[in-house]
C-alpha cells in the first residue's frame, strides 16, 4: 500500500495492522449553482479535499478545526450520509462508499452517531422510550415487547437517566438529559464505532463534564471506537488518543495527542493552540496573542498553494504557489508544511 495514503496505521499500538475505519483520499465537493431553469455550476466548494486517516479498534481519534474546515462533512461521509466525490471509506476493509443504501443497512447498525444539538436531533413527537427503541425496531434486533422495554430501561440506566424518563417527551428534558437520550439511542444497536459530532459543544461546562465522563465510561464498558469531531481542543485533548487537524478542507497535522499538544509542528496548529484561553489570570497575563492574525478565507475561493499561507507567520514564497505534501516528519507525526 502507498505509505502516503495510510498514515495512521503506524501511529497507534493495536491499530498497526488492521484499522477499523480507514478514510482514503476522501474528497467531497459541493457544486455552487446559479440559475433556476438552467442550472450552471459556478464553482466547486472543496469541503473535504484528499483526507486520509485511519482509526484503530478501541481508539478515539479527534478531528478538530474551525468552522468550514470540513470536519463535519468528513464525519458525514464516514457515516455514508454523504457520498464522497472521490476516495472511499473502508470499514473492516470493506469499501462502504461503494455499497448501495440497502447493502449498507447491516453496517449502519455497527456505526452510530451522536449529534451536537440535542434539541433538533430528537423527534419532538416521540417519547424518549420510542426514540431509543426506534433503531432496535428498524434493525429488528428485539421482537418481544417486554424484552424491548427492558432493553430501553437498561440503556436509560447506562446513560444515567431514570427509567421513568421513557414516558417523557424531549421538550420536557434539559439539554444534558437530551444529550444522554441521544447517546442511549446511539448505543441501542450495540455499535462498535460512534461518530460524535460536537457531542458536548452545546452543553454548559458543568453538564459537559458529566457527558465527557459518560462517554469515557461507555468507551471502556462497550469497547467502543470513537471519531470525536470538535472545535474545542481542550475537550479533544482530554478524550482522544490521536488527533487530526483540518483547515479549509485539508489535513494540516496528525499526531498522537501528547505529541500534538506538546510539540505542534504545523504553524496552523501552533496558532490554534496559541488562541485558546486558559482559566488562569497569571498564565493569561503572560500570553502573546499577536501571532494570531487574519480571517478564515472563504472555502468558495480558497487561497492557492498552501491554504494557510495568508495567515501563516512563517510563510515563504513557495507557499503561495506550491501545495505542501502531507508527510511523516517524525514517526507517527504528520504535517502538511514545507517549512517544518
Amino acid at each position: 500500500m502507498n505509505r502516503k495514503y495510510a498514515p495512521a496505521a503506524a501511529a497507534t499500538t493495536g491499530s498497526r495492522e488492521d484499522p477499523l475505519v480507514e478514510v482514503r483520499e476522501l474528497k467531497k465537493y459541493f457544486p455552487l449553482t446559479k440559475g433556476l431553469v438552467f442550472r450552471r455550476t459556478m464553482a466547486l466548494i472543496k469541503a473535504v479535499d484528499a483526507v486520509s486517516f485511519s482509526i484503530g479498534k478501541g481508539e478515539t481519534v479527534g478531528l478538530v478545526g474551525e468552522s468550514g474546515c470540513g470536519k463535519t462533512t468528513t464525519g458525514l461521509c464516514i457515516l455514508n450520509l454523504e457520498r464522497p466525490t472521490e476516495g472511499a471509506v473502508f470499514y473492516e476493509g470493506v469499501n462502504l462508499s461503494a455499497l448501495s443504501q440497502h447493502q449498507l443497512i447491516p453496517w449502519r447498525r455497527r456505526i452510530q452517531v451522536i449529534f451536537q444539538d440535542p434539541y433538533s436531533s430528537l423527534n419532538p413527537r416521540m417519547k424518549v422510550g420510542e426514540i431509543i427503541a426506534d433503531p432496535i425496531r428498524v434493525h429488528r434486533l428485539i421482537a418481544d415487547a417486554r424484552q424491548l422495554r427492558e432493553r430501553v430501561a437498561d440503556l436509560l440506566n447506562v446513560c444515567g437517566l431514570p427509567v421513568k424518563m421513557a414516558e417523557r417527551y424531549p421538550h420536557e428534558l434539559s439539554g444534558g438529559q437530551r444529550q444522554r437520550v441521544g447517546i442511549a439511542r446511539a448505543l441501542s444497536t450495540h455499535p462498535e464505532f460512534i461518530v460524535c459530532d460536537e457531542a458536548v459543544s452545546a452543553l454548559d461546562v458543568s453538564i459537559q463534564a458529566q457527558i465527557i465522563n459518560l462517554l469515557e465510561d461507555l468507551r471502556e464498558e462497550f469497547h467502543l471506537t470513537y471519531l470525536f469531531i470538535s472545535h474545542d481542543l481542550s475537550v479533544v485533548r482530554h478524550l482522544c488518543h490521536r488527533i487530526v487537524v483540518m483547515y479549509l478542507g485539508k489535513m494540516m497535522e496528525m499526531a498522537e495527542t501528547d505529541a500534538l499538544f506538546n510539540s505542534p509542528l504545523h504553524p496552523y496548529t501552533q496558532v490554534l493552540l496559541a488562541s485558546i484561553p486558559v482559566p488562569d489570570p497569571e498564565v493569561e497575563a503572560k500570553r502573546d496573542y499577536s501571532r494570531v492574525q487574519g480571517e478564515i478565507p472563504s472555502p468558495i475561493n480558497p487561497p492557492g498553494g498552501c491554504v494557510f499561507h495568508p495567515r501563516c507567520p512563517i510563510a515563504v514564497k513557495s507557499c503561495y504557489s506550491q501545495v505542501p505534501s502531507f508527510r511523516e516528519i517524525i514517526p507517527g507525526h504528520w504535517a502538511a508544511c514545507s517549512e517544518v
Partner: protein
Amino acid sequence: MELTKLSSLFEVEDLRTQFFTPTGIVKAVDGISYTVDEGETVAIVGESGCGKSVSALSILGLIPEPAGKIAGGSIRFMGTDLLKLSDEEIRRMRGRQFAMIFQEPMTSLNPVLTIGRQIRETLQTHLGLSREQAMQRAEELLGMVGIADAGGRLKQYPHQLSGGMRQRVMIAMALSCEPELIIADEPTTALDVTIQAQILELMKDLTHRFDVALIIITHNLGVVARYADRVNVMYAGKFVEMGTALQIYHGPKHPYTLGLLRSVPRLDHPRSERLIPIVGQPPDLTRLGNGCTYEPRCSFRVSRCAAEFPPMQNIGDGHFSACWQYKEVDQTTRDRS
C-alpha cells in the same frame, strides 16, 4: 452597604428582574449588587439560564413588558437612577453613554441597511453630526477596529461580512459615541477560536485607549481570565462569589466557582484521568426555596444550607462569597495546591 463606593461610575443595587409565566414567576435576576469603576473591566460569569443576560438587558431598559419587569433595586449610572428615567430619556443615553455588544452580530445588525448607514445613524442621532462628518467618522472607526478598506466596507451589507468582521463592526458602533460604559454579552461565543483571540485583544486595546468601562458577560471562564479586573460569578439569579480575577481563579471561596473551574479540561494542566463534574442540574427558577440555590448540587452542604440563603460575606480584600462553608471550600483549594 459596603459593596458600593461613592466614586463608582456604575452601581447596581439589589436588582430584581422577574418574568411572569403560566408556571409561575421566574426570578431571573434575584437581588444582585455590584459596581463598575471608570475604565474597569468587570466580568459576569455563569451558565445558561443563570440570569446574566437578563441582568444586562435590565441595565439597558430592554426588558419586554408585560412579560417581565424590574421588580426592585436601583441601577445608578454616574449618579442617575436609570430605573427612574422615562423611555425617552433612557433611549437618549443608550448608545451615547452606554453601549451594547451582543453575541450574534448577524441578528443585531440590520440586514437591509449598509454598515455605513448603521454607524452613521448613531453618530447623527447622538452627536448631531452632519451626514458627511458622520460618514468620515464611520470610516475612521472601521479603520480603528482593524477593518481594511474601510471606505468600501461602509457600502456593504452585514451578510457580505464574516462573523469576525461583523463583530468588529459592532465594536466600532459601540465605541462610536465614546460611551463611558460598554456591556458585551457573550461577544465571542459565536466566533472561531482564532477570531475570538483577535476580537478580545481588540476590545482590551480599545477599552484601555478610550478608558471605557466594560461589563463582559460570558459562560467561558477562560475568556475573562486575561481581561477582567473583577469577576462576579452568577448562579440561579444571584451572585455567589465576587472578587478580583486572581482571587476567583486561584482561591475560589464558593463551591460553585470551584466546581466550574474543576469541570473544564485545561490545556495547561497534565491530561488528568477524570473530570470532576458538578452533579445534578441548575434549579427551576420558578420553584426556589429559602435555602441556598446551589445546595442540591453542593458537596460542601450542611443542614443550615437548605434552610437559609447565605448572605454575601466579605472575606477581605474585596473578595465576597455567599456560602456558609466558604472556609471549608478554601481549605480544599489549599489542600489541592
